[in-house]
């Protein structure tokens, strides 16, 4: 049995409105369609690689929806396209990382409140703690939301981050998407004790272990966590149980480590279908709305794909110009040499 410390209640909003529920559905459809299209882009040679998030739409849209971009800051990994889309980040600029245009993406992280795409597993979890402590020092009320997975929970940096955040009472929400797989290694071979949320108690951090495929549960939990952290109660951990329905990346071959039967059993009901059934049952949306949402998602994907295809390479001078704020003579000399010896001036 997990013994999770309680999250302070109060400050959380009431039940979701019909408009909010419909918006969540539209976002999830947009993310689903862009995500599955990105795999097609890769197969068509439009982008060299992609890390799909199929099945994690509820976890990403639900948590990203709780963010207040006027004061909070989000620290993603490389698989948070759904969070970026929900936060309103320019998706051509975001997807450019998968076009191999620029590692961190072309979006402005400071303006979008989304840190650059992070390829180091657990690399940015400590950054969230530092940023959050800065809020404390500045007497501001922003909250840092940091994403990581069940695999990343094995990294020492996650332990250090949770300990630092708890000691400093930093306003951080640790959002774990436990999707069952770290490339080929299942959670039971990864997470001793079977639960990342259970570990939070060891740091004195309240935790919520939730159904990550229920977008409403995810949003409500994240809002509670934000309210808790914003009120000066320190960090919260949310473990959203979900399932990575697709491969780790477009280079991965899940057939080598899990069967189709295992995949079907582990995945359970599609989170998008779950929300659809709920909206139908509650009379909040009808088939016309769903068709309209899908059409909008398709139009959006087409626009993003056109933008990605039109994206040229960055000028090579940026390799040199963006290393430092204050460049060095050695770097200038190398840049001059490169210019002289290369054709693409």
């Amino acid at each position, binding site marked *: 049995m997990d013994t999770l410390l309680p999250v302070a209640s109060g400050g959380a909003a009431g039940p979701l409105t019909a408009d909010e529920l419909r918006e969540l559905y539209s976002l999830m459809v947009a993310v689903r369609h862009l995500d599955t299209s990105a795999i097609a882009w890769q197969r068509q040679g439009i982008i060299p690689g992609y890390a799909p998030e199929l099945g994690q739409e509820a976890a990403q849209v639900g948590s990203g929806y709780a963010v207040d971009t006027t004061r909070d*800051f989000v620290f993603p990994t490389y698989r948070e396209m759904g969070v970026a889309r929900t936060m309103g980040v320019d998706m051509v600029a975001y997807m450019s990382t998968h076009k191999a245009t620029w590692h*961190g993406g072309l979006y*402005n*992280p*400071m303006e979008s409140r989304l840190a650059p795409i992070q390829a180091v597993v657990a690399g940015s979890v400590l*950054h969230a703690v530092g940023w959050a402590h800065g*809020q404390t020092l500045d007497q501001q009320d922003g909250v840092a939301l940091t994403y990581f997975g069940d695999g990343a929970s094995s990294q020492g940096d996650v332990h250090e981050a949770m300990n630092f955040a708890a000691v400093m009472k930093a306003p951080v929400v640790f959002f774990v998407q436990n999707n069952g797989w770290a490339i080929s290694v299942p959670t039971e071979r990864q997470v001793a004790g079977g639960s990342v949320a259970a570990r939070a108690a060891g740091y004195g951090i309240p935790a919520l272990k939730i159904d990550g495929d229920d977008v409403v549960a995810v949003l409500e939990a994240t809002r509670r966590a934000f309210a808790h952290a914003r009120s000066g109660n320190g960090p919260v951990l949310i473990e959203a149980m979900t399932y990575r329905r697709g491969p780790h990346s477009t280079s991965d071959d899940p057939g080598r480590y899990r069967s189709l039967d295992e995949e079907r059993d582990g995945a359970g009901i599609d989170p998008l279908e779950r929300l659809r059934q709920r909206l139908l049952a509650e009379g909040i949306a009808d088939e016309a709305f769903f068709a309209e949402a899908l059409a909008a998602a398709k139009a959006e994907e087409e626009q993003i794909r056109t933008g990605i295809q039109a994206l040229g390479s960055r000028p090579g001078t940026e390799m040199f110009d*963006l290393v430092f704020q204050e460049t060095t003579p*050695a770097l200038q000399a190398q840049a001059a040499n490169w210019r002289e010896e290369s054709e693409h001036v």
Partner: protein
Amino acid sequence: MSNSILEGANATGDDTATNTAADSPAPTTVMSMQQALNRALDEVLADNPKAVIFGEDCGRLGGVFRITDGLQAKHGAQRVFDTPLAESGILGMSVGLAMAGFHPIPEVQFDGFAYPAINQIVCQIARMNYRSRGTMPMPITLRVPSFGGIRAPEHHGESLEALFAHVPGLKVVSPSNPHEAYHLLKYAATRPDPVIFMEPKSRYWQKGEVDAATHDAGGGSPTGAKVMREGRHLTLVAWGAMVSRCLQVAELAAEDGIDIEVLDLRWLKPIDAEALTASVRKTRRAVVVHEAPLTSGLGAEVAQLITQSCFDTLKAAVERVTGFDVPYPSGDLEDEYIPNIDRILFGIQRVLEYKRG
């Protein structure tokens, strides 16, 4: 890892001027490097309300070397604070603080303790400006008590400059005396880029004159190397604690009529190639001295820079007098490892006696 042995070393320091405040007007003062660094940090905190100092034991204790002594009492526990004992955590949180508009001045207690933080230093701090296309500068000044010479336990005497200098996105600097320590730290701690500030811990308690008003009386650049002694026959290139040793060597060599120039490199990245060129064009001979192991040490980089610009005028190949390719030894063998006066003199002799053909 116990630091109790090292804390005893502080007893040899003179603490009469430990807390020289920012308001002290005297332009030239005799002080130890520990006092000079303390004063520089005091002034940085006073000048920049966004500067914050943190690390293991930096707060109430003032650091195991007392470099931050009195700063928490003066500037408050929000500006100068202790962290849990985890170097990756210290450097990782520096990234977030920098994003939030602060100028973090973290301390890694000893050189060898930087290894657990390498991922954050190399993969995060050094690359964030680049990754974010210049929108997230990392004005982080990482202070690292460095090099050997104090009979310390294992992992307390490492020379990591080549490792740091090899990482794109980092700058590396090391002061050789109290005056340099004061000015270089004040300069480094106001830069918008990450700087690894390597303090020669064996020099913490040696005193010297600090002219707070002027860094380079000769008009040199704060990012450049500095000629510490002019000479005609050979250039000794060094940094950190090796500079004063090379100055000693130069005095001894002068007794034999050998006129040696000593160049304090100061910045190990970027290296002041122009200063190397100017000095060796004149002397036509060079020996580079460092504590770090020989292979792929910074001496190789210095030798290549000299060779490239002075090939036609060099009288002999650039010689290296360095530590060995061995793990840094225990205190009893430390003097065998660190370049000593005799070994540096042998290196000089090899260069001076070189005959072509």
